[in-house]
């Protein structure tokens, strides 16, 4: 073999990189690639679309778009860090949105307030997540299969409940509340920000977060250190289910509907954002900030494409190429810094 291979860093044991969002300069290095990618995207946006890109309105448009997938991606960060995966998020979102907009729920909302709709969306999301978690932790079904089954079942159930009709939200209070823009910021963007901060705090500053890293990093070691691994796994999926419920409410407010087609393809978007962000698919390493950056990169990309009037197919090709370049870039930078 050639001598050049000797300097190939890949041949050596993986370089120690920072784990979570902390660890000082390491984590900045790890996110630096993402930040650079985002900055480049923004520069491209400004060059090609000028003020149309660099306006408050456009920024809010990007954030509004990012909010739904963002909230789910934060939840997904926990599940993936904990060594799992969830393909059913889009279906759970659909089921929650449909359940929360049935005539039954809407009637209830009319009498006791729109909170009934929010509550039922969150409840349905959490319960579906709980079922995923129980199947995986106690039933020992591999996450991929368990959540694939949930994907099929939840969407099927949503269709049955909705009778394949898009359900329109009549409750004005609901639309007014979630459609409001305190200080000019859309309410769902505020929710997204709140979920991100809460997620960051939970992952990096609490024992729950610490256990998540341990469970994902080495479940056997975690178990022998006295952590209730199975129970924790259930919590993780339930948490993700809850974020799906929140996302359902956000999408309900955005579309003023509940529908069994909501959230189609959401699972791949969320997983991609999490993984691009630097969370390891094999578990044990996760970063909420990275996920946030991942979501923003994908959304900004779409925005720049739309502003530039690219054809759909070209957009798809460019999308793929840009993702790969971003990842390669990020790796080179991370390698250099450590």
């Amino acid at each position, binding site marked *: *073999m*050639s*001598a050049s*291979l*000797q*300097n*190939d860093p890949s*041949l*050596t*044991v*993986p*370089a*120690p990189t920072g*784990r979570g969002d902390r*660890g000082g300069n390491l984590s900045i290095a790890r996110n630096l690639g993402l930040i650079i990618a985002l900055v480049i995207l923004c520069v491209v946006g400004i060059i090609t679309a000028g003020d149309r890109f660099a306006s408050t309105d456009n920024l809010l448009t990007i954030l509004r778009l990012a909010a739904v997938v963002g909230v789910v991606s934060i939840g997904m960060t926990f599940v993936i860090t904990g060594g799992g995966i969830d393909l059913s998020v889009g279906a759970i979102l659909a089921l929650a949105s449909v359940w929360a907009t049935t005539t039954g729920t809407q009637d209830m909302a009319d009498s006791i307030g729109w909170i009934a709709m929010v509550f039922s969306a969150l409840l349905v999301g959490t319960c579906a997540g709980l079922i995923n978690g129980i199947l995986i932790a106690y039933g020992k079904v591999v996450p991929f299969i368990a959540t694939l089954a949930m994907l099929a079942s939840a969407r099927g159930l949503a269709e049955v409940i909705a009778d394949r009709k898009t359900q329109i939200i009549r409750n004005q209070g609901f639309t007014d509340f979630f459609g409001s823009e305190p200080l000019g910021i859309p309410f769902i963007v505020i929710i997204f920000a709140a979920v991100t901060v809460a997620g960051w705090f939970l992952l990096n*500053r*609490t*024992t*729950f*977060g*610490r*256990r998540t*890293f*341990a469970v994902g*990093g*080495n479940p*056997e*070691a*975690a*178990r*022998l*250190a*006295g*952590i*209730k691994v199975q129970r924790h796994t259930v919590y993780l999926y339930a948490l993700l289910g809850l974020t799906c419920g929140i996302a359902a409410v956000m999408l309900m407010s955005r579309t003023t509907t509940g529908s069994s087609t909501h959230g189609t393809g959401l699972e791949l978007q969320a997983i991609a954002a999490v993984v691009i962000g630097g969370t390891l698919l094999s578990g*044990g*390493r996760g970063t909420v900030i990275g996920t946030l950056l991942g979501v923003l990169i994908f959304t900004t990309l779409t925005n720049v494409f739309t502003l530039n009037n690219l054809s759909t197919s070209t957009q798809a090709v460019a999308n793929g190429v840009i993702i790969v370049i971003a990842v390669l870039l990020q790796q080179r930078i991370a390698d250099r810094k*450590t």
Partner: protein
Amino acid sequence: MPQPLLEMRGIVKEFPGVRALDGVDLVVRAGEVHCLLGQNGAGKSTLIKILSGAHPVDEGTILWDGEPVTFADPQAALATGIATIYQELDLIDGLSVADNIYLGHENAKAGVTRDRDMNRSARELLRRLGHPEIRPTREVGSLSAAGKQIVSMARALSRNAQVIVMDEPSAVLDPDEVDGLFRVVEDLRTSGAAIIYISHRLEEIRRIGDRLTVLKDGRTVATDLPARDTPTSELITLMTGRTVSSVFPRRTTELPDGPPLLDVDGISRDGEFSDVSFAVRAGEILGIAGLVGAGRSEIIETVYGARRAGHGSVSVDGRTLRNGSVSSAVAAGLGLCPEERKSQGLVLDDAVYRNISLASLDRFAQYGISREGAERKAAHAAARSVDVRPDDPNRIIRTLSGGNQQKVVLARWLLRSCKVLLLDEPTRGVDVGARAEIYSLIRDLADSGVALVIVSSDIEEVLGLSDRVLVVADGHVVHDGPSDAIDPSGVLDRILAEHESTPIQEEDIA
């Protein structure tokens, strides 16, 4: 003097943040057993990984038969004639024994494997190693650690190499298997091969070593020493830079009378062990002796709740533990240093301090919110008390040397201050200096009222440390008594007696 077969000169290797090797020299001649000594983290494994092509070298030259060579990848080293048994078992769990032995140099025609031939020659190798009972078709993942070590050795032999490197091959073997290993080493030496042998057990080096090289902090501090008659004290001073008395610290106070703290009552598990009972008082050390595979690990894992007991019960302080629940055991004050630190003990990609505090998270948290500073400080103190090197609590565990990883697991339970501590092979892979420190730590823990259960394959260690000893053979307790009333050969006799009374089922070798 004949030309050395292998010379490594001025080898330098840097990892991010550590200079693991800082100009190491190593000269090996054909037909010798060359021992490599050094503390945990001295750089022994790193040196041999450079030799085997697993790591690229930063600086320095390697001469083979006087010719300079570079090993760009493991294939190059193997092709030159260097086979390595790595410290961390490097087998593929999903493949069979024979597949693992011949991985990378399969017996195949046009890519189609000749399984029958491979199985036959694998069986031959295993027989040569004294283990005909390991079937070549068996899946490696189902073997015990000792079984895997044997397969690793068979794999190195299968390469017909001129230099065979053995990085702590004896760590998981019992004395009997070490004898077998040494017979093979002897054969190899007579046939003209060179062996580089790494071990922390000085008595082994005395038995088979010819010459030795001592590493300290990434440098060669002594070379060409005669292995048999360099005084132990000199070796220890060379390795550690100080003097260490490696005697077992004796009990200074009288064992206080009192009710048992840990009470194990007739626990059994099908096919593993049956009807095991013992009790340990506060401040008492119970040793469990036996050969590898006797079921000792299973027993203490069951006590700890990591395995569900078929019968029987375990109680701490009079309160019965929930069967099969580790968290209830931990809540009741139990701690376990498991046998396999990598797979059972550590989150390899996490920092040292976070691994140490893993069992004490709640102590450093308020309403579920971690108090990071306090946690890091306490964990760092615990790491210092067992002398984890380098002294950096933020280091990622994976980059620590094997022995230092073991110390991190110990530190975890020191930090948690439990009432009952179960230690499975606590000194496996730990250097002489650190071992003495661990012994005195164990002593101090006992003196402070902790009840300890120690499993070790080193019979001297069990007897030296414990107040009472349990001898286990084939899943039965064959002896239970004070440890000063029995000596190592007495222990072996009990085990042999048990073996003779129960016929050994031969595994089908066909």
